[in-house]
């Protein structure tokens, strides 16, 4: 099974004829992801890496099957593209771009919530279910098929920890990056719920960072509902107080958002707490 993306995923690439669109489409196809269509207005009839390009998502879905969209559309056009995909019937949208105006993100999420659409991102590295489907930036070589589910706000941190796991011979069921912006469509909690219900996932790695309260919300859920072992790594212990370090979410808001408070909440919820990727591997190993 894996979560969110698997062998049944059929991908529509929005903004497929741009530089990132072409490069990433190549990388998805190389991995074995089934890309059925691309969309760039005005480019219907062309192909990118063998994938047919359509003028609109609606047009694409009349001709091919797709159940997920990944968007490389420039930030100011991202909202229109996302709504187009949702209206055409897509139920999973991966927004890779950073820099989408926040009000546009709010609009996208409102539109999505009314239509039962899951939005990942914006600014996300996406999803990889090793050996099954790659729907995002994850560098293929750093992953191998297995039973550990990984969720992270940061893409790079998810690569880093997955690479360490893979190097140690520990595979992943699915690795999900949520995106670095101040607003997210899918939260840590959402993904942890999915991992908890996924029969192929046996342990969960939660990668968090300072700022905000989503890891604490996840901790509350873990304490009450999660039956699988959870290993966590919260970064930003050495970050200066009250300074924004990239992710707008990573601003310390009172004591609640410090690395310490999150590690404490997770520990109390029964999660194992690591401070380095190597330690994450050790803790996973100890689980058996």
């Amino acid at each position, binding site marked *: 099974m894996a979560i969110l993306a698997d062998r049944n995923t059929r991908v529509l690439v929005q903004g497929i004829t741009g530089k990132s669109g072409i490069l990433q489409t190549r990388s998805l196809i190389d991995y074995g992801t089934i890309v059925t269509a691309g969309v760039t207005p005005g480019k219907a009839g062309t192909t990118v890496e063998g994938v047919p390009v359509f003028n609109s998502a609606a047009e694409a879905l009349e001709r091919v099957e797709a159940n997920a969209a990944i968007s490389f559309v420039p930030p100011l056009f991202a909202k229109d593209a996302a709504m187009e995909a949702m209206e055409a019937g897509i139920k999973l949208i991966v927004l890779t771009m950073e820099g*989408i*105006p926040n009000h546009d993100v709010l609009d996208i999420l*409102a539109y999505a919530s009314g239509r039962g659409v899951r939005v990942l991102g914006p600014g996300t590295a996406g999803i990889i279910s090793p050996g099954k489907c790659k729907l995002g930036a994850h560098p293929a070589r750093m992953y191998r098929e297995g039973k550990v589910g990984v969720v992270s*706000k940061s893409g790079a941190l998810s690569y880093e920890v997955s690479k360490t796991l893979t190097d140690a011979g520990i595979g992943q069921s699915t690795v999900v990056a949520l995106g670095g912006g101040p607003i997210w469509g899918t939260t840590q909690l959402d993904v942890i719920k999915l991992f908890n219900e996924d029969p192929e996932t046996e342990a969960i790695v939660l990668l968090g960072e300072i700022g905000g309260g989503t890891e604490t919300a996840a901790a509350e859920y873990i304490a009450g509902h999660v039956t699988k072992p959870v290993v966590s790594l919260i*970064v930003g212990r050495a970050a200066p107080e009250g300074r924004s370090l990239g992710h707008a979410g990573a601003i310390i808001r009172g004591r609640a958002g410090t690395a310490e408070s999150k590690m404490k909440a997770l520990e109390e919820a029964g999660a194992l707490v690591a401070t*380095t990727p190597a330690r994450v591997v050790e803790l996973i190993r100890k689980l058996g």
Partner: protein
Amino acid sequence: MKLYEFQGKALFKEAGIPVPRGVIVTSSDSSGLFAPSVVKAQVLSGGRGKAGGVALVSTIEEAREAADSILAMELKGEPVKALLVEEKADIIREFYLAVTFDGEAGTPLFMASAEGGMDIEAVAEKTPEKILKLPADPLWGVTDYKIRALADFLGIEDKRAFADLVRKVWKLFREKDAVLVEINPLVLTGSGLVALDSKIEIDDNARPRLKALFDEKLAEQAAITGAVPEEDSGTITYVPLEGDVGLISDGAGTGMLSLDLIRDMGGEAADFCEMGGLTSPEVMYAAMDRVFSDKPRIKSLLVVLIGGFNRMDEMAEGITSYVRDHKVSIPLVVRLCGTMEEEGKVIMKEAGLPVYDDLLTAVADAVRHSGEGR
């Protein structure tokens, strides 16, 4: 882009939200000064009242004295370069009203309190029940029943005037791509509701579609501070720190992890410089330039790269051309892996620069080099 109070009030005025009559002055000689009035430091940080940045004056002499004294201040590191001199308001009641968004819930959020004029963060911490947080649908915005809920919570009687004001605040929030519109205090006077302060922040992501607004407001800010209007900085986040290990990463998560590991290994980072997940040789080059310009005395530079959307060949190109163009004499510790890793390693090797695979080893070496350099 954070706006000064007077800039926010100009937007309020344009939107039809009542503000006191006021003038901007930049010296105590200004003919604009009047009395009785309120003389207020124009700074982007908060808490100026407690720090003495606001004075109530009754005579023109007092106004001059206050202007002199406030213009000599530095508030949270920010030198005061301009003052807003406003008519006093006959305050009957003070409220707090803001609209922003709740990133974790993904919705706009109204916040209101009858404890206006106070330190709202203290209110939030000590008596959270005194703040009403009301989520809003971005398109439906402020429906009548939400306005009734806000008015009831605040105990406002003139619901019609309040509804009008809330709708205007919402319209401003949406049309100006604001991430925060805060009025603290919003005051009830004998002649109705007046916004006595303004705190507005505009979404930098919206700069391309609000070019005129950004140009105007940044030019105003530059005229006051004397600084050149900031260019759109792209995706680079740069935060200067106190140590001597320079740090650049292509992700905030790995950047923070590296920061933690540097400290764990006994070093201290000189900065936090994060390029975002989709960068280019030019951004890599600019990031190195940023660190070296701001921190010329660092002892080593740790570059932590793990490419997903970004390409390692491009990162290597950026690094090697920076090294080619500048004399880099300190140890460069580059951890590089991910998309186009082989190509990147070849470029680094051709330039005679070492490459690391393992993050812990890279951090350890960067910290060691910084120790050696001392």
